[in-house]
């Protein structure tokens, strides 16, 4: 059996398993709170595993392993930043958010602001960040499918991207948040198991000596000791700090991570879920050492770049080499297994992103802005969310087929910078600054969102000799990652917008928000209490 058949079989098995979960979940999904927030019945540890499943994307599994295998030490900096980012989430955001919101990121912002402007801006940035993140995942999926099935040409890549896109639409539209959560849990377990196994086998290859692995990797890289030190990928301190800021502050502004805290019943469960996520994600990122340096030593620079210039195939190729090499049964089997894990990874992340973007559109824009929040028809809202998932999926398929030559890690790093610039300032000011106003929130989101996107467009990845346009001229902005400029810009815009306006109503409500967010008043008992008259039938007949 060739590796194509094997990997197809394993992949189909995963799809069947997760579709089964989705169908089961669709029977559990009756109300809006089911669809958006899994009925708030997810346990803390389950949510922690699901957060890990949501977070460890193609960029983590394929991208970091590839960067380490090509540039050594510098690639590992991504692993550190993406983990430490969870401290920002844990200390400043998770519990307060759980206590003061309901379905979407905008719920917290809209708590004491004027609903329509804030929800419109938040829906825009949620959809924006999610689509950028989504494109990256689908580009990765397309490349993987193409490589695995040995397909050639652009048509195959576009077909692969479309296939993944259609699958994800099915998951989200039928399963909602319950289905998505379980798909993420299954994926996280698979990914951890696959990575642990691979790391163990790599270490065994070097007689359980990390020293030998490092020195072999350094020798094989042709760079010698420089491979174990910073400087092969990044040389400028400002560029490094800019990337570091985007990574460490971005997570707390990622809508698809934030809404996971609404799926648990209490703030304590939200806390427990971040602790679980830190444990799982931290262990995973430490293991990227073995994937990256192992691939550098065992697969080699030439073979890695031959398969994919950006190094994205380092992990799968490492599995093939550990299993016995190209053409051997063991090699094919292990490659197929790791590739199926990578698919699972991408599908789960894509499902999480799609449900976030569609929830935000349906709840924030459709229900609260277009319909002005009048007589909430939850069935219609869920229907709009499902249609939105379809539309966003289609948009992402189209954009991803245009962006299919882009580097996956670059796109995800961009999504982090955008999230940190557009969403984080407004979230923090809403929760901690009494004087904050609607104008401040809207300016903060818009300036952060468009500022960071603009800096990327005029930066070296898009403009100038190494970019896509104006190859003759220098880029207008020198940094690859705009974080160090765009994040302070987002904060400054939110501050300035606030200082130029006054909103006594928002200040009055601040006290109340603090009481609620710190004590859980109205959030915890609300779950246990019987449905009040304002909520539509929680359990329709049948």
């Amino acid at each position, binding site marked *: 059996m060739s590796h194509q058949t094997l990997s197809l079989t394993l992949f189909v098995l995963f799809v069947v398993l997760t579709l089964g979960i989705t169908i089961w979940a669709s029977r559990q999904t009756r109300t809006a709170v089911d669809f958006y927030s899994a009925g708030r019945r997810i346990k803390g540890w389950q949510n922690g595993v699901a957060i890990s499943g949501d977070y460890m994307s193609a960029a983590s599994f394929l991208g970091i392993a590839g960067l380490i295998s090509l540039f050594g*030490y510098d690639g*590992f*900096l991504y692993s*550190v*930043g993406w*983990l*430490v980012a*969870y*401290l*920002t989430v*844990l*200390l400043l955001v998770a*519990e307060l958010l759980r206590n*003061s919101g*309901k379905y979407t990121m905008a719920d917290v912002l809209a*708590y004491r602001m*004027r*609903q329509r402007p804030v929800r419109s801006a938040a829906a825009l940035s949620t959809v924006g960040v999610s689509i950028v993140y989504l494109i990256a995942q689908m580009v990765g999926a397309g490349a993987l499918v193409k490589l695995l099935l040995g397909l050639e040409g652009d048509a195959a890549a576009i077909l692969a991207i479309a296939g993944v896109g259609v699958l994800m639409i099915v998951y989200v539209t039928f399963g909602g948040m319950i289905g998505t959560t379980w798909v993420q849990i299954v994926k996280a377990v698979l990914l951890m198991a696959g990575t642990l196994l691979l790391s163990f086998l790599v270490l065994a290859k070097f007689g359980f000596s990390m*020293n030998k692995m490092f*020195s072999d990797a350094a020798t094989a890289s042709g760079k010698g*000791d*420089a491979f*174990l*030190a*910073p400087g092969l990928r*990044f*040389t*400028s*301190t400002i*560029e*490094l*700090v800019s990337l*570091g800021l985007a990574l*460490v502050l971005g997570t707390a502004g990622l809508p698809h991570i934030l809404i996971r805290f609404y799926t648990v019943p209490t*703030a*304590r469960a939200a*806390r427990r879920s*971040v*602790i679980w996520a*830190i*444990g799982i994600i931290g262990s995973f990122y*430490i293991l990227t050492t073995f994937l990256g340096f192992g691939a550098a030593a065992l697969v080699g620079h030439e073979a890695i770049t031959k398969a994919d210039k950006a190094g994205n195939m380092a992990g799968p190729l490492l599995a093939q080499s550990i299993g016995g090499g190209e053409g051997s049964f063991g090699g094919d089997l292990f490659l197929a297994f790791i590739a199926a894990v990578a698919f699972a990874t991408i599908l789960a992340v894509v499902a999480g992103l799609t449900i976030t973007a569609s929830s935000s559109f349906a709840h924030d824009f459709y229900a609260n802005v277009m319909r*002005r*929040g009048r007589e*909430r028809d939850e069935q219609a809202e869920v229907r709009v969310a499902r249609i939105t998932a379809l539309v966003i999926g289609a948009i992402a398929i189209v954009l991803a087929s245009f962006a299919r030559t882009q580097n996956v890690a670059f796109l995800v790093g961009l999504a982090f910078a955008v999230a940190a610039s557009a969403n984080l300032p407004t979230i923090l000011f809403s929760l901690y600054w009494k004087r904050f106003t609607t104008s401040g929130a809207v300016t903060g989101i818009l300036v952060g969102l468009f500022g960071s996107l603009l800096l990327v467009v005029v930066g070296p990845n898009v403009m100038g000799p190494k970019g896509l346009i104006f190859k003759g001229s220098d880029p207008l902005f020198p940094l690859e990652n705009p974080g160090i400029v765009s994040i302070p810009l987002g904060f400054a815009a939110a501050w300035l917008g606030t200082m130029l306006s006054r909103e006594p*109503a928002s200040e009055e409500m601040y*006290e*109340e928000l*603090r*009481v609620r967010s*710190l*004590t859980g*008043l*109205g959030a*915890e*008992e*609300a779950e246990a*209490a019987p449905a*009040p008259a*304002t909520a539509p039938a929680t359990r329709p007949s049948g």
Partner: protein
Amino acid sequence: MANDRREPSRSPTTGRMPFEEAVTATEAVGKDPEMAELERRHQRFVWPMTIFFLVYYLSLPILAGAAPDLMGTKVLGQFTFGYLFALSQFLMAFVVAWVYARWATRRMDPLATDLRKKLLSQQIKDKEVAE
């Protein structure tokens, strides 16, 4: 300006929607000494801790950019200072998370639960009076 603040779906008493059981009478709570204590504990823990981990974390990219030779120095066999420092970031994250969870369980949760119960019973009383 403020005309779209109050919408029909939201409670007429608080003008806000997030939870159906819109709980009123939280104004007085702002002055409650227990609430002030909760607030004080939260601010005093969370901000210093955030500054600590951000400084510790950002010293990694700064050192990687400004002192690559130091980071490339081999400290233990093939382990460079830079790799060990990066690993120490994982340890730091695990320790901060553990310390936070312990602090929150011991210093925040009992007080928060107390306050919540007190406020709830107060509201039930208020409602009865109103009716």
